[in-house]
């Protein structure tokens, strides 16, 4: 059975209604819906000329610039699965993902330092500028009929960190790009073609992908892309220049804007401010409202569910809550035995809905562990529900969400253990206010003394080897770590609960 091609659904109506309208701003440049359509078809044509067949994988490692939607939509038009990853991945992680998904083509802003091959075939690299691949080799006119997907065909795939060091591929069907437009964009946020959307979260994340690609194209709105750093000054500068009506961001950015603000009141052009990625502290909601007069609409989603399944609603947002179940989704809070918890009790959140991934790529055991036989997905989050509102209480596994990004304790521990002073270590969530951050618990080698200088050295060691958001905010020194009788570290005993 066939299903609509998401790229066709998202592009065609805009071409008919307002082809010259600006689809994207990026810096001082503009891209109209007509230009977006033409460039996407050109890229689809290139894929066909390169012999990339439908359902094969192309890896897109680009920042938020025109080239991202162009190449992403071009993949979908030709039936190729667009695998979107951060452009800031190390070459080691990039190589892992390319081999895991079997990508034959990489789209990036620069060549790889060392050539890669998958199953004996060299991985080609298309180097883009911020507009897309070079024009001279390909034409949009040669592209024929867009690919007609089958219901079970994949459209795109994202990678999500797990509690082990290796990321997991999360494939999605075409409907995962289309349904959030109705379930959240229209029904909850009231998005229209008059909106200008600015998301500080990158397109390579599920949140940013729907915010900056699915939503604007679905409604014929204009989106603002920012490939640069997410510091509060740059973000406020874009907001003042482009005057978005909708701003999507994360608690860390809202906090940093509040802290960097030297005026008593901040007049902003938005009608809606939205947040996701990690729990929004009530204090941040309240201070933002005092400063700007605007609510922050917090919600929670996941890469596995493609977008939000719990969300606040404009005009009725509740500080400290992730909101209510989005109509169209189902949720349960269960205990360790899988039974529903009594009302008002903490439970592990399971969720189900039409935007869910059917599996983790090449990980049947992990898929079976996370996606239950009845279709519900274990989120790993602990919540309390009161009067329909969900309140976040932490994780029931070792993963840490810091700055809206997943942190695998294994990855951090491996780096920490490589320091000559460290005999053993564990990384677990520590609470700072109502947010979780990675905290390090360290056993030093015999004869090594815990000093301020050593602590500075450990911190510098981590920052030189890991992205900053993964670096522990605190080092606690211990005689020994809690372990099971078989020697496994019991991180849950070190984990601090959110109060």
């Amino acid at each position: 059975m066939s299903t609509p091609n998401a790229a066709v659904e998202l592009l065609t109506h805009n071409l008919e209604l307002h082809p010259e309208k600006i689809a994207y701003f990026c810096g001082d440049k503009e891209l109209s819906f007509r230009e977006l359509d033409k460039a996407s078809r050109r890229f689809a044509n290139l894929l066909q000329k390169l012999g990339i067949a439908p359902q094969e994988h192309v890896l897109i490692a680009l920042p938020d610039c025109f080239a991202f939607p162009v190449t992403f939509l071009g993949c979908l038009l030709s039936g190729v699965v667009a695998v979107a990853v951060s452009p800031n991945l190390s070459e080691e992680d990039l190589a892992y993902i390319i081999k895991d998904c079997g990508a034959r083509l990489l789209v990036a802003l620069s060549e790889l330092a060392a050539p890669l091959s998958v199953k004996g075939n060299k991985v080609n690299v298309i180097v883009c500028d911020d507009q897309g691949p070079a024009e001279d080799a390909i034409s949009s006119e040669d592209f024929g009929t867009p690919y007609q997907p089958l219901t079970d065909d994949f459209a795109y795939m994202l990678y999500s960190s797990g509690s082990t060091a290796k990321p997991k591929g999360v494939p999605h069907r075409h409907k995962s790009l289309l349904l959030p437009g109705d379930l959240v964009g229209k029904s909850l946020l009231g998005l229209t073609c008059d909106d200008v959307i600015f998301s500080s979260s990158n397109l390579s994340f599920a949140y940013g992908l729907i915010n900056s690609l699915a939503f604007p194209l679905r409604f014929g709105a204009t989106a603002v892309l920012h490939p640069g750093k997410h510091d509060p000054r740059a973000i406020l500068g874009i907001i003042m220049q482009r005057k978005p009506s909708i701003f999507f961001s994360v608690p860390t950015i809202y906090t940093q804007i509040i802290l960097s603000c030297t005026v008593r009141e901040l007049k902003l052009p938005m009608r809606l401010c939205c947040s996701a990625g990690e729990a929004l502290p009530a204090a941040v909601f309240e201070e933002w409202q005092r400063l700007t007069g605007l609510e922050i609409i917090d919600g929670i989603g996941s890469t596995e569910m493609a977008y939000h399944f719990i969300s606040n609603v404009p005009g009725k947002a509740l500080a400290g809550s992730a909101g209510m179940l989005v109509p169209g989704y189902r949720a349960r809070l269960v205990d360790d035995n899988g039974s529903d918890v009594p009302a008002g009790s903490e439970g592990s959140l399971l969720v189900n809905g039409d935007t869910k991934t059917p599996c983790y790529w090449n990980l049947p055991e992990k898929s079976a562990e996370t996606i239950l036989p009845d279709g519900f997905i274990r989120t790993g989050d602990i919540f309390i529900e009161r009067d329909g509102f969900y309140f976040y209480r932490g994780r029931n596994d070792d993963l840490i969400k810091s700055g809206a990004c997943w942190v695998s304790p294994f990855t951090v521990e491996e780096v920490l253990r490589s320091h000559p002073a460290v005999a053993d270590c564990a990384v677990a969530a520590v609470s700072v206010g109502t947010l979780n951050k990675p905290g390090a618990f360290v056993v030093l080698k015999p004869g090594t003394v815990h000093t301020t200088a050593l602590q500075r050295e450990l911190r510098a060691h981590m920052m030189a080897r890991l992205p900053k958001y993964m670096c522990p905010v605190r080092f606690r020194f211990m005689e020994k770590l809690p372990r099971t009788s078989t020697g496994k570290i019991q991180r849950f005993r070190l984990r601090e609960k959110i109060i």
Partner: protein
Amino acid sequence: MINELKELMLNIGVEERIVNEVGPDQTLAGRVMDSVDYTAFIVAIEERYGVKVTDRYALKLRTLNDFKNYINIGVE
């Protein structure tokens, strides 16, 4: 105490040149410390001075003088 706070900034990895240049009434967010530094700074202050910085107060602590005043109230 401002010097002690600057020592903590060095401990959490803020560049020495930036720490030397920052004034006691200069806004720290963005130019001096990013979000990760801020969190590590708050944790370091909590451990050093035995005070608890709640979310509500954390949003009001913009300068080194703000932190100094908060710590002094907490310690008293």
